[in-house]
């Protein structure tokens, strides 16, 4: 079970994983639309007042394009035999934990909480900011869920990248880290420029 959740790429065939990846991308886009959230970066989820379904699909398309582009480029540097499909699959599957974050905004829960906190904040007098204990606990739980999702997503992506490229050294890990940082920057920039 642990292997299935953290490294499905070792055992499961590429056809099954590709179909699963496409399915979760479509479902994830719908979740973003349904729970009023946007995936504005490869590891980012942001609540939004109104989300159009096509906008959510385009966001995820840009995220996938960015991550696949950089990881394939660095993958080919590490190992010339790296195949596009072996990079595309982890890029699709690793977004599952990020899509699941949409559930945290059920009934605009997180968005309402964040709006009420922001309305309490007086920029001229930040020392007067007050937060209820219950709200603080909710925020901490949300932060823990977000960090957990991020770790799960990066783990999936790294395990998939490792199998796709047969990378072994720490320099290869460094290239992977560079790839995901560049992909995050590119996806956020492209979404800001063409899909806002």
């Amino acid at each position, binding site marked *: 079970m642990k292997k299935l959740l953290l490294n499905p*790429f*070792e*055992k*499961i*065939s*590429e056809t099954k*994983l590709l179909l699963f990846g496409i399915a979760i991308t479509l479902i994830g886009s719908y979740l973003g639309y349904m729970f009023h959230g946007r995936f504005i970066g490869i590891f980012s989820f942001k609540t939004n007042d109104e989300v159009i379904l096509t906008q959510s699909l385009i966001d995820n398309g840009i995220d996938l394009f960015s991550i696949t582009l950089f990881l394939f480029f660095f993958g080919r540097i590490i190992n010339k*035999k790296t*195949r596009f499909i*072996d990079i595309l699959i982890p890029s699709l599957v690793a977004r599952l934990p990020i899509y699941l974050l949409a559930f945290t905004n059920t009934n605009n829960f997180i968005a309402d909480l964040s709006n009420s906190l922001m309305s309490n904040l007086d920029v001229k007098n930040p020392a007067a900011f007050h937060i209820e204990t219950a709200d603080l606990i909710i925020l901490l739980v949300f932060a823990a869920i977000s960090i957990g999702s991020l770790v799960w997503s990066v783990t999936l992506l790294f395990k998939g990248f490792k*199998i*796709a490229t*047969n990378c072994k050294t720490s320099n290869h890990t460094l290239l992977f880290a560079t790839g995901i940082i560049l992909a995050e920057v590119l996806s956020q920039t492209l979404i800001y420029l063409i899909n806002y």
Partner: protein
Amino acid sequence: MIPKLPIHCPSCSDSLSVSQLKCENCQTTVSGNYSLPFYLRLSEEEQHFILQFFMTSGSLKEMATQMGNSYPTVRNKLDDIIEKVKKLKSESA
């Protein structure tokens, strides 16, 4: 039970070589110092992998299905064995 052919010295872990061969029919023994062929210097698992590769006519896809692994996992295993054989070859050259 078929005993496993030891390829490393149990005392110092260095590679073992063949020093004696015997004909089971006439009991003739040949003594000398012969190095093990590359195939025998691989681990049992790697030898099994090569045999499977041969039996599937080199189809990694078919091997992946038979082994219950994904295609890139099988390809990586093959690449690792190729690297190991290259290393063994350069060591013995």
